[in-house]
């Protein structure tokens, strides 16, 4: 912000000295156009062509849509997806949004640790989350062994909803925290309190209405992410014979008489859902335009609540994160699967196997892929973020989000159809799939930071005589650098634990760590699966440690996507 005032002050003085001869104007227009062109080309190559090619598969098979709609199961599946995703969204808003609001309004003890804990699910593949929940809570799980507690009702819509909800909590938290930071004027609340509203009235008449756009945006993201997830319903919904769209897609893929057509036609459901949800959310969000200035957060009285919030959140983290992790750990440590997880049965055999064998090379390959994807997507995210700010830019964000809104397997098939002819057989095709799938992930925080900065610093720098590039480098880059790094880290971590895309695209000798995990699962060796998942989670965690250690980076992620740290 210092740059802003510095350059802002300079504007008035230096503006007249900046000549605008015609050639420069032309060059500038061309320069503005270039990022459009690059982003449009990126969308064409990474989104439009593969997704279009995918949809073509369904469209050209006559009757496939009809066949899908005729299947009574599909309506149940749609209902299942809607119910569990809505439930997960509600839960994510309640926990993540509630925490964001509480952290803003109250001095919650251990706020930093609680924040880190709430964000943890970002680092764990949903499949692993669901697996560890079963290993912790269901029959013959950790708690069953220790306390005789078995929550077998977790198999079914309730458990699916809860675990999906836990997975979406970080999204809700980050989006709402960012919104609170940028537009939640503390004065608005103070004014309401001074006008005679008690804290609860204030929450419902002022705070929540003010946050409505952010609540909508968070709901949209959570809903789409939950609807496109397969790992959680695979573990928790299928055993209860509770179909969702993604398990139906999986079923169609495993056992379909119409080849690719039916899974693809099913995937269009999710694409349509994504488009509709984004369109509606965008429209509703636009209605209330932000006028908010930055204002220092209001720390409100209500001291008894501070402790209550800490305890409730800590309890939530214990149930949602810690115990499942211990469940995973207990299975990975127990030498023989099925024996009770007491110290006498512990051994490091599975972990040793997990880190030896193919896992090492696969990890290196995954790291390379993730590194490249994160780096390319940061540039792409900056470009898309700046394009998305301009008039009509919303369509850019929506298009970029499509590959993120469909299951990874659909993206893998789309990329294979679109590029298999030329790039198949190496890591390039997996890389292309990562670029397509996770572009939205990079664009989101970077775009948020860019829109947060606004055009003034850039204009001021230009007015001071800086060339376009230099102005960007000196006035914009220093402010968005933390967010770019946050986006980089987000993409890197997500790619690192990506499972489904690479398992459909790898070739012998080019396994990724995801392939290794799925192979262990295919073998039905839960101990090995748990051990590899554990190692993977720990590696991802280790990579995320800079986030939690560096105050600056915390601020970065907070500034870009959150705002609370």
């Amino acid at each position, binding site marked *: 912000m210092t740059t802003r005032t510095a350059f802002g002050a300079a504007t008035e003085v230096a503006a007249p000295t900046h000549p605008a001869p015609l050639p420069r104007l032309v060059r500038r227009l061309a320069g503005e156009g270039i990022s459009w062109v*690059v982003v449009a080309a990126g969308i064409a190559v990474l989104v439009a062509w593969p997704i279009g090619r995918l949809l073509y598969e369904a469209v050209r098979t006559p009757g496939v849509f009809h066949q899908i709609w005729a299947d009574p199961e599909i309506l149940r599946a749609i209902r299942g997806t809607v119910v569990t995703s809505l439930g997960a969204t509600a839960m994510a808003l309640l926990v993540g949004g509630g925490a964001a609001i509480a952290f803003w309004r109250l001095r919650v003890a251990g706020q930093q640790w609680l924040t880190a804990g709430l964000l943890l699910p970002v680092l764990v593949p949903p499949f692993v989350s669901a697996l560890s929940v079963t290993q912790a809570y269901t029959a013959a799980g950790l708690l069953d062994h220790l306390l005789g507690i078995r929550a077998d009702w977790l198999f079914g819509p309730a458990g699916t909803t809860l675990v999906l909800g836990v997975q979406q909590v970080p999204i809700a938290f980050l989006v709402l925290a960012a919104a609170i930071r940028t537009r939640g004027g503390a004065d608005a609340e103070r004014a309401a309190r001074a006008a005679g509203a008690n804290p609860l009235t204030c929450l419902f008449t002022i705070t929540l209405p003010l946050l409505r756009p952010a609540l909508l945006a968070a709901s949209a993201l959570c809903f789409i992410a939950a609807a496109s997830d397969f790992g959680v319903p695979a573990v928790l919904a299928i055993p209860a014979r509770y179909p969702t769209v993604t398990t139906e897609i999986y079923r169609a893929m495993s*056992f379909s008489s119409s080849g690719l057509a039916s899974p693809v036609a099913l995937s269009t459901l999710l694409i349509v859902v994504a488009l509709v949800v984004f369109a509606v959310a965008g429209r509703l969000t636009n209605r209330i335009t932000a006028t908010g200035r930055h204002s220092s957060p209001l720390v409100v009285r209500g001291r008894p609540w501070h402790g209550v919030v800490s305890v409730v959140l800590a309890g939530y983290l214990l149930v949602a994160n810690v115990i499942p992790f211990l469940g995973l750990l207990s299975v990975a440590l127990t030498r023989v699967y099925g024996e009770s997880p007491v110290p006498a049965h512990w051994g490091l055999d599975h972990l040793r196997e997990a880190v030896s064998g193919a896992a090492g090379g696969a990890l290196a390959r995954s790291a390379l892929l993730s590194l490249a994807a994160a780096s390319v997507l940061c540039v792409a995210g900056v470009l898309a973020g700046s394009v998305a700010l301009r008039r009509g830019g919303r369509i850019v964000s929506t298009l970029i989000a499509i590959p993120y809104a469909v299951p990874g397997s659909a993206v893998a098939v789309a990329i294979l159809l679109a590029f298999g002819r030329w790039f198949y057989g190496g890591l390039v095709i997996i890389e292309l799939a990562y670029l397509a799938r996770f572009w939205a992930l990079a664009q989101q925080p970077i775009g948020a930071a860019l829109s947060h900065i606004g055009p003034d610093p850039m204009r001021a720098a230009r007015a001071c005589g800086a060339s376009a590039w*230099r102005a960007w480098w000196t006035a914009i880059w220093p402010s968005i650098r933390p967010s770019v790094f946050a986006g980089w880290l987000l993409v890197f971590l997500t790619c690192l634990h990506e499972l489904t895309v690479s398992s459909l695209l790898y070739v012998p000798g080019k396994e990724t760590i995801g392939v290794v995990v799925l192979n262990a699962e295919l073998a039905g060796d839960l101990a090995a699966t748990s051990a590899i998942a554990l190692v993977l989670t720990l590696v991802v965690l280790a990579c995320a440690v800079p986030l939690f250690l560096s105050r600056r980076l915390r601020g970065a992620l907070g500034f870009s996507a959150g705002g609370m740290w």
Partner: protein
Amino acid sequence: MKRTLAAAAAFVAAMGLAACSSGKSSGGSPSAVSTPSAAASSSAAASPSAAASGKITVYAALTSANGKALADAFHASHPNETVEMVTAGTGALVTRMETEAKAGGVRADAILLADPTVMPQLASEGILGSYVPAAASQLPETMKGDGWFGAFNFYNVIIYHTGTTPVPKDWSDLTNPAYKGKIEIGDPSYSGTTLAMAAEVPKLAGADFFTKLKANDVKIVQSTNTVGNDVASGARAVGITLDSVYRPLAKKGSPVQIVWPASGAIPVPAPAGAVKGHEDNPVVKDFLDWLLTSEAQQQLVSLGYAPALGSSNAVPVDAKVVTVRYQDLVSQRSAILDAFKKVFG
């Protein structure tokens, strides 16, 4: 500035791709995972068809470890021939081949899957070739089809957690209220191996078998692996799963026992075949032929599978095995699933 930025983007993209392709070339070295690094020269095995040499890719629904073991054994008997295995679930491999077929051709030369019911579909899509080894004539009619043959067999059997009483002896025992809330089976909508079970067991244990199982609060999970794990952990006491699921668990010492049902286990062949257009590759022929040699069959037994040909201790001599007509299974698939769904919803 945007132009410079674009240039930077292109540069980074190029770097990324370069990094990937360098990974590709290093990964493509002969020491790749599924190829044996040491040339097994002690090839006392039957000398294969003269001068064949080269490398083929097999899409195999095996674990990567088993895939590698099988590839190594083949290479040991055919020193000039190499098999690279792409291992994944049957569904993933089928999806992959269907996609590849539309994007420049299937990359596999041969396939070794775990579900015979996908084979007619692969044939109709022009993916499955026509080569079948001569030795396949020894297989029962039901264990092979057009363009494929069973390289080894799975059997749907009963398993139970050690110590469970009473010990079930046959399919019909599972309707005993003593097992109420303790049984777990696979879901026939996700795999053909379980589809065979869903079709055949009612014929052995009575048409109302699943209705009674439902009354016994049976739990239905997606995969037979899950059944194995849940019975091993004790989450469920009894389950219907595959013998190939049972063996690795038992080998590692998990508390799980197998029961070959008195009225008959349900066999499921693991279909192998050539990919269309690759049938004439001598290495493909050698590999498929080799699968039915006693050497390969013994190798498969050592990996925990029941052989397609010859005897082994994998299946008890007195075990009864029913006959399943896989062509019928495919044509009746939706009827079988509907009947199943009618019971379980």
